[in-house]
């Protein structure tokens, strides 16, 4: 029974991420694209998938990765997310520099571009804050509020960006993945009560155990 549950959770995650990627890999549009554009596009899908994994790790929802180990993985996946993003933006830049400049300067005619660019800056900001958190002497409360605010921006931005794009992703699997991203973020924020005011500023670990 326990084993069945563990298998089910991991299988569900593998399907949630694997199915959209597999379907995108069969898109007829790939035929008309350069390898570098394909790489840039799939890095975007991988980044979307990693945004799903992040709250699952920090919430300790994945069997075998309880919250304390999940937190370590969360850091690594955060780094991978930044890397995927750099490849995504870089690949698109090489494919069509003027379109990428339009997006980055918020002058693009495409409605999804600003969502993606704002999410990108939010991801960079979280990564930078996380890396410099000790050095800056951020109080846990300050860090948590900053991270959660940016997390909301990232989730909304990434999902809106992905949903509005007409690209290689198959519509239904994309919508399911995006819905899971939103659901996972909401669940972890409710479970960890991240917005709750702590009685003690240097409060103990969140109400997790």
């Amino acid at each position, binding site marked *: 029974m326990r084993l069945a549950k563990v298998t089910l959770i991991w299988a569900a995650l593998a399907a949630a991420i694997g199915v959209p990627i597999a379907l995108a890999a069969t898109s007829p549009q790939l035929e008309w694209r350069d390898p570098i554009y394909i790489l840039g596009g799939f890095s975007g899908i991988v980044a979307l998938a990693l945004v799903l994994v992040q709250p699952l790790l920090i919430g300790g929802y994945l069997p075998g990765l309880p919250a304390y180990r999940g937190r370590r993985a969360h850091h690594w996946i955060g780094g991978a997310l930044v890397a995927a993003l750099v490849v995504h933006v870089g690949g698109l830049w090489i494919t069509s520099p*003027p379109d990428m400049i339009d997006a980055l300067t918020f002058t693009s005619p495409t409605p999804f571009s600003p969502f993606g660019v704002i999410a990108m800056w939010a991801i960079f900001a979280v990564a930078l804050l996380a890396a410099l958190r000790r050095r800056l002497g951020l109080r846990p409360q300050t860090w948590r509020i900053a991270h959660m605010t940016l997390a909301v921006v990232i989730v909304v931005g990434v999902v809106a960006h992905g949903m*509005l794009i*007409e690209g290689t992703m198959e519509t239904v699997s994309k919508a399911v993945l995006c819905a899971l991203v939103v659901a996972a973020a909401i669940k972890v924020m409710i479970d960890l009560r991240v917005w709750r005011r702590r009685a003690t500023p240097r409060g103990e670990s969140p109400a997790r155990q």
Partner: protein
Amino acid sequence: MTTLVFNRRTLLAAGGTVLATGMSGLLLPARAAGLAPTPSMSGGSNNYLKGAPTVARIGKGGFWMSGTVRRAGDGAPLAGQRIQIWAHTTEGREEDQRSHGATLTDKDGKFRLEMPQIVPIFGQPHGHLAYDSGEFQTVFLRPVMRSAKETSLEAHFVLQPA
């Protein structure tokens, strides 16, 4: 002191007055100036290559780009105007020379050029058109297809003398 009382009647009357003056303000200059020129669209000039050759067809064709060219003000059709067209298609990328071509408008100011099927690029299936011949002010358009399955796309120019 007087108290302002808004009931439905005064509100309707006031609203009607504002609307009437506002609308006439909007309409009058338009009538005086006639047909307004088409502004360039954002991103319209992306991957533009100046001086695309006038061709009977871009690549193997199968997709139709069409539209009209008229003069600002009186809306008179402009014949013999060169419209440049490019897009990301099944045969090439936007910046590829072979994805670019130009055509001339007929006596009714209409143009129509066959080109390869446009496919989505940067998240939207779209084409690019340019009027950049000097006699009128340069205009870049970037129409978006309602669906990637469509096999034609239209764009219309209203040009202003340079």
